[in-house]
């Protein structure tokens, strides 16, 4: 297997509504920034791997519409879509392409333009099998709304389960939002930037669905992310400090989606996320990391909901289960801390869904390359972990990045 490295990252500014551009044009902004960052032209790239959420914009095959805007003219094109993990899976696909030796240089592109679409309808297409079966049995649609309600409908059960098992309180949730949104204030591409936010401010926001308040939940963003991956050899010619992707691993668990019929029965507690632990363990092993707690310098867990930052910090094997709330209180997760978490501001600040899991890898890469600007963490970042959560809320994807290739 060949060494793979990130040599260029591009992000669009993320906002609620970009009415001045269409989908292809919005994504172009990130793509052209990535080519510029890498110092490459589309002619020097061998293939394009892209993805966004299925049906969210109501546009099928958006990659075939956008391809020309993204430098894909007469090149191999592949779309990957796996739910919330989409961007991570896109990054993994790009890694496979280069690591396998089939491609030398590829661009990974992930995006979402939520203002064009109807995300609730998009999510409903994911759980359509359940909905149709339940309605066929005469279940009242209003009950479905209470269960479904989009991703929040899953996250609230997950949050209360995690809080019971870990001792995490609503006060910890408030502090997670403060950590992320104040970090986001230093990231020019982030959506919700709230410098000076306090836990009290978060605690005063309206309750969305117990136990989560509006202040604990991600916004809906329009935005895109692109990342150029190449061989270790070529990367060293392009930049003094490439970010090597040492390993990727993903793991699909039993269904944790609430429903009765069809594909999504609730076989496991959505607060468990054992598949994240398995994926993390595999990724660390392949990356040659024996002691992640001491070796990992920075983490970008995928956390659109406040409790998930703590839950996935634990599931990424960075502390014992139930310990993350105390780690948060210690200040270690902050930008100047021992193991900064979500210096980008995280998904709770910016969520162009299909792009979000790629943006975790992109942030890890930028931090290693020293290109994060105002949100560059204080410590030198040698090794970082980037995560995505999605699928039918049962898929976890993990990537480990470093400033040196695998030994």
């Amino acid at each position: 297997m060949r060494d793979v490295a990130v040599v260029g990252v591009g992000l669009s500014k993320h906002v609620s509504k970009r009415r001045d551009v269409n989908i292809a044009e919005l994504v172009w902004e990130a793509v052209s920034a990535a080519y510029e960052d890498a110092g490459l032209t589309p002619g020097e790239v061998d293939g394009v791997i892209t993805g966004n959420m299925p049906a969210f914009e109501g546009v099928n095959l958006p990659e075939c519409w956008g391809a020309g805007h993204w430098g894909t003219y007469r090149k191999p094109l592949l779309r990957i879509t796996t739910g919330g993990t989409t961007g991570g899976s896109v990054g993994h696909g790009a890694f496979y392409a280069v690591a396998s030796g089939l491609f030398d240089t590829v661009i990974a592109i992930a995006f979402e333009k939520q203002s064009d679409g109807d995300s609730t309808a998009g999510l409903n297409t994911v759980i359509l099998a359940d909905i149709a079966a339940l309605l066929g049995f005469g279940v009242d649609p209003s009950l479905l709304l209470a269960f479904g309600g989009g991703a929040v409908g899953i996250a609230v059960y997950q949050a209360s389960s995690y809080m019971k098992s870990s001792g995490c309180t609503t006060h910890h949730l408030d502090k997670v939002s403060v950590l992320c949104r104040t970090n986001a204030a230093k990231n020019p591409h982030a959506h919700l930037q709230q410098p000076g936010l306090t836990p009290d401010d978060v605690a005063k926001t309206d309750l969305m669905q117990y136990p989560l308040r509006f202040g604990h939940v991600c916004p809906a963003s329009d935005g895109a992310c692109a990342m150029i991956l190449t061989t270790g050899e070529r990367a060293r010619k392009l930049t003094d400090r490439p970010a090597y992707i040492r390993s990727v691993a993903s793991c699909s668990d039993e269904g944790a989606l609430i429903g009765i019929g069809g594909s999504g029965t609730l076989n496991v507690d959505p607060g468990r996320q054992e598949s994240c632990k398995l994926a993390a363990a595999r990724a660390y092993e392949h990356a040659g990391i024996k002691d992640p707690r001491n070796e990992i310098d920075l983490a970008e867990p995928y956390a659109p909901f406040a409790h998930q930052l703590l839950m996935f910090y634990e599931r990424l094997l960075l502390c014992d289960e139930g310990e993350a709330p105390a780690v948060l209180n210690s200040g270690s997760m902050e930008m100047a801390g021992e193991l900064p978490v979500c210096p980008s501001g995280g998904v709770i600040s910016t969520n162009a869904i299909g792009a979000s899991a790629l943006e975790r890898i992109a942030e890890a890469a930028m931090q290693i390359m020293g290109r994060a600007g105002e949100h560059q963490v204080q410590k030198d970042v040698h090794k970082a972990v980037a995560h995505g959560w999605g699928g039918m809320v049962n898929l976890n994807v993990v990537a480990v990045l470093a400033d040196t290739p695998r030994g």
Partner: protein
Amino acid sequence: MKADEDLQNVGRVGLPLAPAFNWSVGNWMEQFFDGLKERKIMASKCGLCGRVFLPPRMICERCFAKTEEWVEIPETGTVEAFTAAHVRVGPDGELADLPEPQLIALVKHDEADTLLVAGLVAKNASAGMRVRVVWNETPSGALDAISCYEPMD
């Protein structure tokens, strides 16, 4: 699936969903639509290869360059291909027969490198036929500002 189909072991389930989509067309298409209101056909041109895009698009795929130049395109062009429609989609979403077949043409406007599609009102259509735009009496800022094409002679 039509409602009156007699299917066994099949239940019809109505989903209480009303998806709403709000697609942005982008600034390039906005300028095209603004032009149509004034009976102007505006295209964008790639500064590198010189291709003229009608309708306009922001990026030239071949050059990966922004098309920053605007050109006004004549109302005349040539039929590249055409077909005859015999049905239309009715307001109920089902197909309905048209009283008369309707011609639909792909037209390459003079000075443009790409094709527009619209109805064609002609007795004997042929590829290569020279046509001109018939404007709607009150052109709106939408594609139907071009009512159809008609033969030049």
